[in-house]
């Protein structure tokens, strides 16, 4: 776990230092501007109607989802990285 935390911190520091140490030339800034245009969000807010429908929701049933995680956590050794997190159990 310490390795994981160290890796995350290292990536953040390297990214910050890399950004600080480079002063882009005007030509590069122009090129970057064009790249930014390409990188603009490709799904506009008015195009998200389908994403907001009930069938696309992971959190439509928070209590039921939490309970199922609880059922599995009590009977399986694997744990963590669930979409939502469950509670304890009665599980012997």
């Amino acid at each position, binding site marked *: 776990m310490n390795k994981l935390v160290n890796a995350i911190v290292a990536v953040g520091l390297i990214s910050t230092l890399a950004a600080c140490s480079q002063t882009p030339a005007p030509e590069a800034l122009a090129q970057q501007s064009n790249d930014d245009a390409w990188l603009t969000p490709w799904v506009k*807010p008015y195009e998200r109607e389908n*994403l907001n429908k*009930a069938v696309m929701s*992971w959190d439509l049933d928070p*209590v039921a989802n939490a309970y199922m995680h609880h059922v599995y956590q009590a009977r*399986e050794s694997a744990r963590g990285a*669930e979409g939502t997190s469950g*509670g*304890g*159990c009665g599980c012997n």
Partner: protein
Amino acid sequence: MAVTRLLFAVALVLTSIQASIAAQLPEDRADAMYHSYQGGGMSIDGPSILVRKKIGSAVSVSANYYVDSVSSASVDVLATASPYKEERDEQSVGIDFLNEKTLLSVGYGQSNENDYNAKTYSIGVSQSFFGDLSTLSFSYSRGDDEVGQTGNPDFLEQASRANFKLGWSQIASKNWTFDVALETISDQGYLNNPYRSYRYLDASAANGYSYATEIYPSTRTSTAMAVRSRYYFPIDGAIYGEARVFSDTWGIEAQNYKLGYTQALYDNWLLDFHIRHYAQTKADFYQDLFDRKDQYNYMARDKEMSTYSDLTIGLKVRYLFKFAPGSIVNASSLNLAWDHIQFDYDDFRNVLVNDGAGQEPFYAFSANVVKAYISIWY
């Protein structure tokens, strides 16, 4: 005793620190659920109630009350003890703060039963960016448990837990989303169940074996990574899938996969079907039958530590009531869900069948999980 040490994430139930489509406050809603688990000699049921309410435009509070009423005559209990009944109560509260595209979530939960008390604290933050197409989240929670033993007032042990979770949620297209989550959990203290025993060969015993209290390591660190995705079909349906890989310092490796389909019908109905498969390898210190007492430093016969797999098939149906604009209640839904789970163990034997020590058939059982609940949005 319920294995309440798994409570470490209970407070997260109420918070929104998992990756979501965009950083936003949870909806105002209330849910009341009856849950039931029947299988493997276990009968567990009870209510769960969740209430969420915004305060202004930047704060949301929530509270959850949950009960497990347990009646147990599982294979573990019948092998070494007597059937028992107990109840576990759980309460948790959470609060979310929204500042532009940043959501800060704080939670607290506690669980109490006659021989186990647990407290969990959690904090998390999520940040939306790139036109709200991407959301990054990070959460930390800590759990502190007190482990007791019924009939032994001198027995009191401690366990603590910390988990770190990173999440990334992405809108990939106007019909497609996916999430990635990475979570590391670290345990320390008394991690085994004081009622569970390992068995070892004993020529002096009538059936050829005896039992002794399990011995677990006092530390455990696990890492899990999961991806999940949903895709919308223009027939008002969505297909979804999840995959997770897991490993820990006890030598357990696991994977689970889930595939499902949700379909909306006639504006009010919603149907869901899913299938899930899970498989794991055994812990390094697990054996169904040891050669002798105190053979190793660590010894376990918990079936959850063995090599096994399970398969779930689930169905859910929902009916949505919509109310006129301006009503106190905006909408309400009635929901019924059923999951059937089949467990098959590869190196855990059913000692209730007397076929000679180490010759018993491998254990298997199935369980039915039912959830009936009503949800109200206001």
